[in-house]
């Protein structure tokens, strides 16, 4: 188990440690099976082209799961992911390396919980933000 992060360790503006994901067509098939999302645009190139897409594309919700992992890897066993938002702005293709990043935007105590709000996003190899999101987490306190 990774080192536990505490509320007192974090300041607004701090970056969330980057998570890199090297995607593959195998991963998309595994995700299709695991998530029961069998839409052909994610594994059938001809079908995807027929729908006007540039080719097979990565499932938006797999990208959301990457962003969730970005946060749960960071907050440790005692941290809790309370909210996760993802908006799919650009398409990504299997084989792309996606870099998940985040930044702390707010820090507050609410109903006895020590919370952080973060902007989170995914960048492709060109540095374009293909997925935008936000997260709210609760952390343990040393106090």
């Amino acid at each position, binding site marked *: 188990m990774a080192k536990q992060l505490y509320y007192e360790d974090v300041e607004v503006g701090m970056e969330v440690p980057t998570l890199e994901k090297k995607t593959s067509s195998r991963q998309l098939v595994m995700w299709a099976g695991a998530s029961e999302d*069998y*839409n052909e645009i994610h594994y059938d190139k001809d079908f995807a082209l027929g729908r006007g897409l540039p080719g097979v594309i990565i499932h938006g919700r797999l990208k959301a799961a990457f962003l*969730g992992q970005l946060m749960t890897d960071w907050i440790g066993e005692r941290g809790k992911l309370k909210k*996760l938002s993802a908006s*799919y702005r650009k398409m990504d293709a299997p084989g792309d390396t996606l870099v998940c990043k985040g930044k702390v935007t707010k820090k507050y105590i609410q109903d006895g919980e020590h919370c952080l709000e973060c902007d989170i996003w995914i960048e492709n190899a060109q540095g374009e933000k293909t997925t935008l999101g936000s997260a709210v987490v609760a952390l343990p306190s040393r106090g």
Partner: protein
Amino acid sequence: MSQAEPTVESVRRTAEALCLPYTVEIERRMIKKFAEAVGDTNPLWTDEEAAKHSEYGGIILPPTFFCSVLMAGISLRLDSLPPLSSSVDGGSDWQFFLPVRPGDTISVSAEITEVKERQGKLGRMFFIYWRAYYRNQRGELVAQSDNTVIYY
């Protein structure tokens, strides 16, 4: 004329008819396959021995599992909404309230919250906003999601 032109009202009616409730029994193997697909090796969802020492006393469902099977039952039905041919997932906001353990049964219910029509690059587009509620076998609300799907 085979089919009438879709309107906000007709799209809403068609989508509402597809929001049928369903239940999912959470099994260990599902969690394993999910974590492998994402490449997420967090011990809280992959290592029973390590997770035993956590506050949960064992493996829990990763919160991101709500991006997965628990939405697919409805989102797949909403993939195609005749006479609209193509759809794309716009995004979701998830809220997680309570942990879920293997052996729990999650009941999913959904509602259409809004339908909008817009003129886009590809012509007429419809935005459907839908909300899903996820309850465990004790009737507790464990998570909620607000989702957007775009038809063109």
